[in-house]
């Protein structure tokens, strides 16, 4: 038997709302499967499970907001016989009842311990006429609250207009479960009243940043890095690639940070309970701003082991999903260091605030052309300011300096990244 708990999807998360279960009792799950959609104050997250087994019981129903660590579901891990017959055990009503004349078929074989994993139930889709859909958007009517009277219960224009005219129910609290069959829409657009992410996110950022500045003794280092070799290599490399596979220079920076951190491991990990816990894996959190305001820093996993192309694919995917508001739990929870690049905003230097419980944040500014003296000659070179915000409890400025020097050195040999 194993418990599936409300995961912590970020150090700052205290509560999560189960928007949707993607599994039901009797479903077989394996490590890495996405089993539920959880709304935190920052985003809608697809939550993975880390155990293989058969879902036995869903404890927290859809729509409920519970603290981190709450038991969400119980799993029977492999080999274990389910304690009680799972509700799905009864055989599917397969063929229509056979005509009387035919001999009665043999009784269905008894259900063996491991029933064949049924496909996860397709989420029930609302039937809404195109016109009703359009009018609902205009009138801001939540279709999940509308009763359809059209063919097969489809929602029509009249239904939406009726719902729009109906007096607003006295602000039903979010936790109230919707009536009977939960008309959960696509995972990205849950039927449960959505949280105001913008306001909630501000609150979360406020809490995390205040904690950071309250608890973490920051030190700041900065160094200018000559990017001429890196940029020349990148230009040549991109000429060889189809447009869709071209690299952004941020990919070089992220990879350089991941490799440099192997040389200065005290920047990679977490400060927990008064001690530094070093992380072997390098999961680089990439700060991505959200158009409506706020930001989130999901992780690209095992960056030091990935090629530039792989990192580029991950980065593109992350940005897309951040903007769509669909991230996976592992991406949110386990960044071991964060990189923020504010170059696009025209900023030259970043003085970053560490995202607790991480112990370092690396900032990059804009790449600018500057006079650069090298070998007794002055020339114009593309230059970027790399900065490090370090947690002085975990590392010292000396080691931080070595880290930035390593980043510099690595960027001078872009072909090796």
């Amino acid at each position: 038997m194993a418990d599936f708990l409300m995961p912590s999807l970020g150090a700052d998360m205290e509560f999560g709302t189960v928007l949707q279960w993607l599994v039901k009792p009797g479903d077989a799950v394996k490590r890495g499967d996405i089993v539920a959609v959880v709304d935190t104050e920052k985003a809608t997250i697809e939550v993975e499970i880390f155990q293989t087994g058969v879902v036995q019981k869903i404890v927290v129903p859809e729509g409920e907001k519970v603290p981190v660590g709450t038991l969400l579901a119980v799993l029977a891990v492999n080999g274990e016989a389910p304690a009680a017959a799972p509700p799905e055990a009864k055989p599917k009503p397969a063929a229509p009842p056979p005509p009387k004349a035919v001999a009665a078929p043999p009784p269905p074989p008894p259900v063996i311990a491991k029933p064949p994993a049924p496909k996860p139930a397709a989420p029930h889709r609302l039937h809404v006429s195109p016109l009703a859909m359009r009018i609902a958007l205009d009138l801001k009517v939540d279709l999940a609250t509308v009763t359809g009277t059209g063919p097969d219960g489809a929602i029509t224009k009249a239904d939406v207009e009726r719902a729009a005219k109906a007096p607003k129910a006295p602000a039903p609290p979010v936790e109230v479960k919707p009536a009977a069959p939960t008309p959960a829409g696509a995972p990205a657009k849950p039927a449960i009243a959505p949280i105001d992410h913008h306001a909630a996110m501000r609150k979360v950022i406020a809490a995390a940043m205040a904690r950071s500045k309250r608890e973490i003794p920051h030190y700041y280092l900065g160094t200018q890095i000559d990017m001429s070799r890196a940029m020349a290599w990148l230009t040549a490399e991109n000429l060889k690639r189809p447009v869709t596979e071209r690299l952004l220079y941020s990919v070089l920076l992220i990879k350089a940070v991941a490799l440099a951190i192997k040389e200065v491991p005290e920047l990679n990990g977490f400060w927990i309970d008064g001690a530094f816990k070093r992380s072997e894996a390098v999961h680089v959190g990439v700060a991505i701003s959200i158009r409506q305001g706020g930001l989130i820093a999901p992780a690209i996993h095992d960056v030091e082991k990935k090629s530039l192309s792989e990192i580029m694919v991950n980065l593109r995917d992350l940005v897309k999903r951040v903007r769509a508001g669909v991230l996976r739990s592992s991406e949110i929870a386990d960044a071991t260091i964060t990189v923020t690049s504010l170059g696009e905003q025209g900023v030259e230097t970043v003085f970053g605030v560490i995202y607790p419980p991480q112990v370092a944040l690396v900032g990059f500014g804009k790449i600018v052309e500057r006079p650069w003296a090298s070998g007794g000659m002055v020339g114009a070179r593309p230059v970027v300011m790399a900065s490090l915000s370090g947690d002085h409890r975990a590392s010292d400025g000396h080691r931080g300096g070595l880290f930035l020097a390593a980043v510099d050195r690595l960027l001078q040999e872009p072909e090796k990244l």
Partner: protein
Amino acid sequence: MSAEGKVKITYREAMRQAIRDAMIRDQRVFLMGEDVGRYGGCYAVSKGLLEEFGPERIRDTPLSESAFVGAGIGAAMGGMRPIVEIMTVNFSLLALDQIVNNAATILHMSGGQFNIPLVIRMCTGAGRQLAAQHSHSLEGWYAHIPGIKVLTPATLEDARGMLWTALEDPDPVLIFEHGTLYNMEGEIAADAGPVDIVKSAIRRTGTDVSLITYGGTLFKTLQAAEQLTASGIDAEVVDLRTLRPLDTETILDSVTRTHRAVIIDEGWRSGSISAEISARIMEGAFYELDLPVQRICSVEAPMPYAKHLEDAAVPQASSIVESVTNLMGAHG
């Protein structure tokens, strides 16, 4: 003369006047087909015209659709304005090669050198117990072919007015006359004349549903629309008039107002003109639709001979009322 400036007339007589009028107006116009002369036309449309215009211009032909339609194409290329009558749409299949491979393509194949200003009239549809070889509605097939126009006059005005406009058109025009309409009698303006052949017409305005139809089912549909008022359903009736080119704009306008569409077509459903209309509504007015587009078509079987079976096989006012009422259900 009954009312002021109005005359009482049948569809058959309106069609005959249209032919007569064209013969008088333009010396290049002549009529040919099986039994159009001495017999007066198998639906008696051309009765009396042989006596008035003589055998040069009212020509009986041998029993070969391919031959006399081909002759019509040749005459049109040579500068004449032929009206070719084919008894029924089923027989027109013998002339399909002439119509599809020649009439519809010669302008294109000759690099624009030769127009085919040909008009072919034929009878279509069921309702007269003529069974499976004389009763089908294949006009939707012809509407598939670029290079020809397909007209389906249903009203007396259109029977009287479409022919001349068709003759003036530089390209081949097919006119489908529904067999049950010939005896229909009504009043039209004494000076009724040519009408356009490009626009569909709203025959009844309504707000709840657009009933889109043409030809022989127009009056059944209008009758159904009246009966639907008893259920509180205010139906609009669109008479397509022309199946090719389709007046998509009028259809979409109507659906945009009513948000519901039912297409009534005596043709078979599969691959039909009703399918085409349904697709255009979906393409052009998807976000206006409040219910799925519905079609009422003929049963997909050869047309039965027995009266009760024939009646059951094609759309009737009662089946239209029933379908529309079901569709609108509790939310009309």
